[in-house]
C-alpha cells in the first residue's frame, strides 16, 4: 500500500483543484468541529462558500485554555474568552447539538449572566449534549434554563453544587430523553433523587449525604463517595443511601464502579435473598473495598455470584474498618460454586498481602478457568509473602501474575 508522505510545511502541497469545498455539509461540519473553535471561525476568509460555514457548526467546544495569551494577564484572557463566546453564539445560526465549556477562570460561571444567556440560546436550538467543566474553585449551580432544554440526552457537569431549590430531580424530570448523566466533583447539600427509566449511564462522584436512585435500566453505574478525611465511617456521617436496592435493581448493567467510601454504606439485609443470575450483562466490576470487612466482602461476593459473564475485575484495596481478628471469609467460600468462570483479567491496587487479600487471591486463582492476567500493584511486599503468592495453585494454565 502506497502511503505518500505529505508533510506540513516543507513540501508545497498545492492541490490542483478544490478538494474540500465540495464535501457534503455534514463532513465539513465535522472537520470544523475538530478544530479549536477560534480557527474554525477563521475559515470564513477562505472563500465565499466558506464565509458562513462556521456559523452552522453543530458541535461547539469553548476552552478557556485556547485563549491563554501567555502574557500572564488572566483577566485579559478571560475577557477575550467571554467576548468570543458571546459573539460566536449570537452570530451562530442553526441547531447546536453539543456544547462544551471548559474553563478554570474565576467568575466564569457565576457573574455577568453569561452562562444564563448561553444556556438560553442552547435551549432554543435543540441542544442534546452539554459539558460544563470548571475547577473546584469556581463552583456553580445548575442554571434553571437547563430545565427548558428538553432535548438533552447527555449532561456532564464538573464542579457543580446542588443546594436547596436546585435539584437533579427537576433536571431529570424535564429532560425525558436524558440517557447519560455524569457529575464529577459534585457537592450536594441536598437530597439527590433520580428517577428515570431512560437513563443509561450515570456517574456521581463527589461529596453527598443522600442518594435515592431509581434507574433500573442503567448499563453503566459509577458512584464515588468522598468524605472528609477524618470521617471514620460513612454510616456515622449520617449518610442516607438506597444503595443496596439500587444495585439489586440493575439487571441490564454492564459496568459497575463503586469507589471512595460508598461500600461502607451497604446494608446487609438485601443480601440474604439470592436471586439467580441477576446480572447477565455485567462484564466489568471495579470496587474500592476492604476485602477483610464482612459487609463489603458480602457485597463483592453478591456481585461475583450473580454475574456469570464477568470478565474484568479491578479492586482498589484498603483496610478501613477492619475486623479483628480477621475472618476466614474468602477461604470458606464453597469451591464448587464457580464464581469467576469467565474472568480474564484482574487488577489489585494497594495490595498489602493481608489475610483477606491473600484469601481472595487464592480463591480467584483456584476458581477462574480462563484467567489470563492478574496485575498486583503493591506497596512493598514481604519476600515470603511474594513467594507464597507466586506459588499459589492456578487452575488456568495461562494465568500470569504481574507484580508492579
Amino acid at each position: 500500500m502506497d502511503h505518500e508522505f505529505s508533510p506540513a510545511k516543507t513540501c508545497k502541497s498545492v492541490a490542483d483543484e478544490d478538494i474540500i469545498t465540495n464535501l457534503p455539509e455534514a463532513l465539513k461540519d465535522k472537520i470544523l468541529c475538530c478544530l479549536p473553535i477560534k480557527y474554525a471561525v477563521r475559515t470564513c476568509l477562505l472563500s465565499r462558500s466558506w464565509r458562513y460555514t462556521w456559523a452552522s457548526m453543530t458541535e461547539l467546544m469553548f476552552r478557556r485554555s485556547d485563549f491563554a495569551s501567555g502574557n500572564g494577564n488572566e483577566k485579559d484572557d478571560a475577557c477575550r474568552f467571554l467576548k468570543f463566546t458571546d459573539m460566536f453564539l449570537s452570530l451562530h445560526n442553526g441547531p447546536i447539538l453539543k456544547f462544551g465549556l471548559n474553563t478554570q477562570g474565576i467568575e466564569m460561571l457565576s457573574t455577568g449572566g453569561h452562562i444564563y444567556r448561553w444556556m438560553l440560546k442552547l435551549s432554543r436550538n435543540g441542544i442534546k449534549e452539554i459539558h460544563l467543566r470548571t475547577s473546584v474553585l469556581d463552583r456553580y449551580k445548575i442554571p434553571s434554563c437547563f430545565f427548558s432544554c428538553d432535548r438533552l440526552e447527555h449532561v456532564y457537569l464538573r464542579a457543580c453544587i446542588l443546594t436547596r431549590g436546585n435539584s437533579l430531580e427537576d433536571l431529570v424530570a424535564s429532560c425525558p430523553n436524558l440517557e447519560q448523566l455524569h457529575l464529577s466533583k459534585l457537592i450536594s447539600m441536598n437530597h439527590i433523587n433520580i428517577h428515570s427509566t431512560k437513563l443509561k449511564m450515570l456517574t456521581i462522584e463527589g461529596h453527598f449525604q443522600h442518594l435515592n436512585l431509581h434507574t433500573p435500566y442503567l448499563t453503566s453505574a459509577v458512584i464515588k463517595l468522598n468524605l472528609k478525611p477524618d470521617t471514620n465511617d460513612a454510616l456515622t456521617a449520617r449518610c442516607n443511601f438506597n444503595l443496596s436496592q439500587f444495585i439489586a435493581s440493575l439487571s441490564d448493567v454492564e459496568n459497575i464502579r463503586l469507589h471512595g467510601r460508598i461500600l461502607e454504606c451497604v446494608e446487609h439485609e438485601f443480601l440474604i435473598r439470592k436471586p439467580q443470575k441477576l446480572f447477565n450483562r455485567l462484564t466489568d466490576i471495579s470496587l474500592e473495598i476492604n476485602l477483610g470487612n464482612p459487609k463489603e466482602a458480602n457485597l463483592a461476593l453478591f456481585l461475583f455470584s450473580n454475574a456469570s459473564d464477568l470478565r474484568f475485575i479491578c479492586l482498589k484495596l484498603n483496610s478501613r474498618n477492619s475486623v479483628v481478628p480477621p475472618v476466614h471469609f474468602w477461604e470458606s467460600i464453597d469451591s464448587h460454586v464457580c464464581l469467576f468462570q469467565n474472568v480474564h483479567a484482574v487488577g489489585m491496587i494497594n495490595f498489602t498481602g493481608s489475610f483477606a487479600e491473600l484469601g481472595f487471591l487464592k480463591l480467584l486463582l483456584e476458581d477462574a478457568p480462563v484467567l489470563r492476567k492478574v496485575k498486583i500493584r503493591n506497596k512493598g511486599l514481604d519476600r515470603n509473602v511474594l513467594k507464597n503468592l507466586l506459588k499459589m495453585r492456578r487452575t488456568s494454565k495461562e494465568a500470569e501474575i504481574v507484580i508492579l
Partner: protein
Amino acid sequence: MAATTADGSKVVGGGEKSNVDEESKMITLFSSDGERFEVTQEAAAMSQTIHHMMEDGCVDDEGVHLPNVGSSILAMVIEYCNRHVASPDEKEDIRSFDAGFVNVEHHTLFDIIRAANYLDVKELMDLCCQTVADSIKSKSVEEIRELFGIVNDFTPEEEAEIRKENQWAFE
C-alpha cells in the same frame, strides 16, 4: 483471522460456497468497480451500515455491493477495520498504526472520509477528520487555500469587510 484481497483477483478462504460462511463468519464486499473482498463479519460490523444490513437480514448470498466505494479506498478501510478488531486492547500499537494510516495525500484522506461516512465507521471518521483539522490548525488562510486548492473569490473590499465583521475572532 481476516482475509482480505488487495487486488481482488483471488478469493481467499471462501471459495464457491455461500459468501456468508457460517463457520468462519466471512462476508463478501464488492467495491464500485466490481472487485471482491472477503472480510470477517466482525471487521465488517465496524461499519454500522453493513452491521445493520447484516442484522436486518439484507445480506443475500452474493454479499454486499458498495457502489459508492472504489476498490483502493475499500481496501484501506478494510485494513483499518481488520487492525482495530484484531487487538483492540493494544493502545500503543493501534496509535502508531493509525498515525501511519493517515499519512496519505489529502485527496486520499477525503476519499476515505467519504467512504467512512457512507459506511458509517465512526472511529475512522473521527481519526481522518481530526487529521484534516490538525493540518489546518496551524496554517494561515492563504496556506489553507493552497493545501486544499481553494480559490479565493473575495474582492479585497469583501475581505476587509469580513475581517471587520469577525474582528472578535482575530483578536
